[in-house]
């Protein structure tokens, strides 16, 4: 950090670090060195260099990283700001016994951060009165960032303290509740008015939803507005498609008078939570290949404190649709909601065998995205699928061809149901096939 406010060496007083000495401080993220490459009346530069122990990051007590090959020791992120907060704590608070006036005065400052993920740098620093200049480091997310502006030293330090980890997007330590306090304290006087305060809050708190809500509520309190107004950035963009899908599935199950229902690929239990509310589904069997997803489903369903009567309706089990699982036989209906597109096309015959031959329920519901509709999603770049794990997304004709082939081979009839708002040319965003065993008509 450089100033040309004269006498420039007064910077040392504001920072409580003498310009003619190199000092070292032991901090929780490594050894922080403070020294002055330049210290004249006209111009004074203070440097903060953090030496991180790369081995301790992986093997030390409380280690949080798993890779020795890691950019953390070089990048300006949360490790650096922990050191910053510890070495310059008094200056950041704006206190200076010897130069109280100067501490309250905006002075010309240039801050250089030589390795910083720079994508959001201009967007986040500019509203705070900085001019941002970036030199990119090749084909990487890092750049050499220079901030120029006339600000109080304490404000400059606070901005860096909050925004460096925000730009980096990851924290090296577990985000605990007291991080909200740290954020509000360092953000005092500028965060509430920042146009990107939701983004900053979300990223600073490493996307921990309960913490974010709490921070936003308290910020709203400062601004005297409703938290919902602030929270709109966090709301699901497509609020209702998932809900409409579940509704359509439940409607089709009821039409089929299904009582014993399989949710194949139940994931975190989004559909299970709806099924359990409907007493006519007397047996609900959720299956997923991911043991982690099943734990999540059990947690969200509150299985552990469910009444015995409710609890005995639900079974959660790990299984895979590419293997024949006789336990799945004998049910009235099976739902594959947004599942087939996560299976490699070459494995679809195995899925077909598991579902339509081994499980063989009277009714099978399959929903999947209609790729024709993708063009209508503004945020979805052309040619990109809706989810990074999708192995394919089908047009209506492609889905129909697959569904009819299955029905023909396995003795089912099939009809198609659109889900979500229908476009005259492109159809609905989600398509559902309803397979019924034997001749329905």
């Amino acid at each position, binding site marked *: 950090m450089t100033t040309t406010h004269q006498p420039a060496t007064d910077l040392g007083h504001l920072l409580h670090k003498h310009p*003619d*000495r*190199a000092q070292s401080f032991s901090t929780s993220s490594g050894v922080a*060195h403070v*020294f*002055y*490459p*330049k*210290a004249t009346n006209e111009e004074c*530069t203070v*440097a903060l*260099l953090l*030496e991180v122990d*790369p*081995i301790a990051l992986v*093997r030390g007590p409380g280690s949080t990283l*798993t*890779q*020795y*090959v*890691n*950019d953390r*020791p*070089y*990048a*300006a992120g949360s490790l650096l700001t922990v050191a910053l907060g510890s070495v310059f704590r008094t200056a950041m608070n704006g206190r200076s016994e010897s130069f109280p006036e100067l501490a309250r005065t905006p002075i010309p400052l240039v801050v*250089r951060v*030589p*390795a910083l993920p720079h994508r959001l740098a201009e967007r986040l620093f500019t509203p705070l009165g900085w001019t941002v200049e970036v030199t990119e*480091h*090749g*084909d*990487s*997310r*890092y*750049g*050499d960032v220079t901030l120029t502006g006339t600000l109080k030293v304490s404000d400059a330090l606070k901005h860096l303290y909050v925004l460096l980890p925000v730009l980096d997007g990851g924290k090296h330590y577990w985000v605990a509740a007291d991080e909200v306090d740290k954020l509000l304290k360092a953000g005092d006087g500028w965060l509430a008015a920042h146009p990107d305060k939701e983004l900053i809050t979300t990223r600073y708190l490493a996307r921990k939803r309960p913490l974010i809500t709490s921070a936003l509520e308290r910020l709203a309190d400062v601004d005297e507005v409703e938290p919902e107004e602030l929270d709109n950035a966090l709301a699901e963009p497509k609020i209702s498609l998932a809900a409409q899908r579940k509704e359509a599935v439940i409607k089709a199950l009821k039409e089929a008078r299904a009582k014993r229902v399989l949710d194949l690929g139940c994931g975190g239990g989004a559909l299970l939570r709806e099924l359990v509310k409907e007493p006519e589904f007397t047996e609900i069997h959720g299956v997923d*290949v*991911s*043991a982690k997803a099943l734990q999540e489903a059990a947690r969200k369903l509150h299985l552990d404190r469910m009444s015995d009567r409710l609890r005995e309706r639900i079974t959660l089990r*790990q*299984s*895979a*649709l*590419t*293997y*024949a*699982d*006789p*336990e799945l036989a004998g049910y009235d209906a099976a739902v594959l909601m947004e599942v087939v597109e*996560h*299976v*490699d096309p*070459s*494995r679809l*015959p*195995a899925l077909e*065998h598991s579902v339509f*031959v081994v499980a063989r329920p009277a009714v099978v519901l399959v929903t999947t995205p209609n790729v024709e509709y993708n063009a209508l999603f503004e945020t979805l770049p052309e040619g990109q699928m809706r989810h990074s794990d999708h192995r394919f997304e089908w047009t209506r004709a492609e889905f129909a061809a697959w569904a009819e082939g299955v029905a023909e*081979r396995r003795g089912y009839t099939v009809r198609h149901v659109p889900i979500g708002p229908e476009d005259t040319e492109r159809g609905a965003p989600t398509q559902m096939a309803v397979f019924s065993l034997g001749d329905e008509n």
Partner: protein
Amino acid sequence: MDLKIPDLCLVVLIGASGSGKSTFARKHFLPTQVLSSDYFRGLVADDENDQSASAAAFDVLHYVASKRLEAGRVTVIDATNVQAPDRAKLIEVAKRANVLPVAIVLDTPTEVCLQRNAQRPDRDFGAHVVKRHRAALRRSLKFLGKEGFKRVHVLRSESDVDSSTIVYERLLNDLRHETGPFDVFGDVHGCRAELEELLVELGYLLVRDDEGRAIDAVPPADRKAVFVGDLVDRGPDTPGVLRLVMGMVAAGHALSVRGNHEEKLVRALRGHKVTVRHGLEKSLEQLTHETPEFRREVEKFCDGLIAHYVLDGGNLVVAHAGLPERYHGRASAKVRSFALYGDTTGETDAHGLPVRLPWANDYRGSAMVLYGHVLVPEAEWINNTMCLETGVVFGGKLTALRYPSREIVSVKAHQVWYENDRPFPPPVAERAPDVLALTDVTGLRRIDTSLIGAVTIRAEQSASALEVMSRFAIDPHDLLYLPPTMAPTATSQRDDVLEHPEDAFAEYAAAGVTQVICEEKHMGSRAVLLVRKEGGAIYTRTGRAFFDGALGTELLDRVRSACSGLFDEFSTDWLLLDAELMPWNAKASGLIREQYAAVGAAAGGALPVAVSALESAAARGVDVSELLARTTQRASNAEAYRAAYERYCWPVEGLDGVRIAPFQLLAAEGRTFHDRSHLWHLETLSRLEGPLFQQTRHLVVDTADPAAGVRWWEELTAAGGEGMVVKPLANLGGRVQPGVKVRGREYLRIIYGPDYTTPSNLARLRKRGLGRKRGLALREYALGIEALERVARGEPLWRVHECVFGVLALESEPVDPRL
């Protein structure tokens, strides 16, 4: 007196309190075979005489009895069992396990019982109880057979009890002592001429009577014929077939199980009301031309046929319609019905014939099961079972399988003898070939390997592998092998490196390995190449396809055309190769950009600026000399690091730039090569020509004189090589590590970070534990070889997949990823 009981049965002791059941049981059976109601009352209620606990006690007793019987263990029930409803429950337990129930009644006189009880202080329940037991027992006696007991032994006196001995008899279906070799014949259906032809083809000598009729066939060299049943009906000469087969069976030259057609013929011959169709009309008509005496013999013969046989020490099971493993060697109406008719659902199809479930798809037993009954166009293996009914009577062929050589021999039908109710040959069924079941891979598993015995896979390891296998791996039909992990050499105690070849040589020398091969380690991604004449796959260590779509097909095509010489040399339609695919960025580009390049960029951005700031400070006279020296060193480490990873990346456009270095020929049709020397592998694979292939540089080293090997490694790594792999030249496997890697000093920067060479860092990194990794490497190697051997033996897919899945499951074990 001898009490004969089947060698697998449920023995129900029946007798009043004090009749001496427990003493009898103790004398004749192992303590673990005897389940006493008193004991179970004690288990659930802490009091053996607490009658209020009886219901719970019997629940548990029945449960334990079921488990024992399912496992095929003789089990004895020591309870009074004087009431019919109590016995009915036990009979049900036996039937459910397909085991015969037998009764042994201790009809001890009342006075004796009372006398004995009087001597036991815990049995103070008075004479009326014993008298009631005795009365119930006397009433039951003559109905025991009807209740379902296959044998009833009554011991009327104390001397009977004292003098009796248990004599075990084998079941009628138990021919385990018959070890063959056998020729197993499919359904004959009255096609005498074809049967005679096939017998002659197989070397049997036909014996004819005065009228020229075949009445026996003498097998060559100790062989024996086995018929899967359905000798009769539909065809032109059922009496002729029976005359021949009956003669063979009588002479000890053949065995035959019962088919559903024999079952029905017996009923018809006995005058029962049966619907005469499906060819029964032919048999009945043909038999009218025979003597009444012959007809009686036929009736007796067919009636005496057993529904299934267990042969050759349990390795071979013959049943007309097949038999799942849990029914092998068992006896019950259910087992018999399955053996005769198959797994019927009760429904009928469009042709009025019963719908049958494909039990063979689910078969996982180790015994070979041979059967007929279901028409198939060709006899084919499904999970160690084979159906031999190839429809000779419908104009197909008569098929026999030679056991144990598995050779199929058939003769064509001389004509269409009977028009089929269903189209023949049957359309090539959409039989899901080798369906894999969830139970083939989940839960706690023990997989027997030829190299190191059983390998255990824990349930949670299977669970994590299930997700990876199911979501990302290629079709299991192409996933015949996964490569094992490889451990690094023991950590070097030299102060400038972490790994050094002298430790690898010393390790093998200590294990008695005199010659090792050093192979250059290619820095790319491990690839397994299954090259079929049509199709195949190129996949990663976790079973993912390397390249999608057209690119993958193109690469496979290039490899295939290079392999044509090897196809001929090993007369095979497919080859399985172990290889390294380069460059590193061909598959790992995401990882490289996100992790490796990011470190380079951040370090390259930060460190030079730091150095120059420190130099300025130093120029002002501030003492930063130590920090400046360290930071300068870090900057140069970062440079070295950057150079290290960039060496393994080069631009790839489509397939241009992709290179494959094959180093082991894993398997081809019917054979594996894991016992060949590594030089043989490298030499054989060096015949793959073209710009796509890269040779693997190597050097054979004598472990007693390893200096040349050390030098070779130094040169290799000084020139930027990743390092080398040291393997026993003779490819020993199992006993010692199949290979250890010795990585170069510079290369390890991209594993342990740019600054790992700093002495203080090296000192800490040296404390790495290799034991777990080495254990995994041995087990995964054994599983991989086992998979290959199972493929070579033509075993069912589930048996191969079990091993491949096992490798992936072991890989889910948390092990330091830098090893």
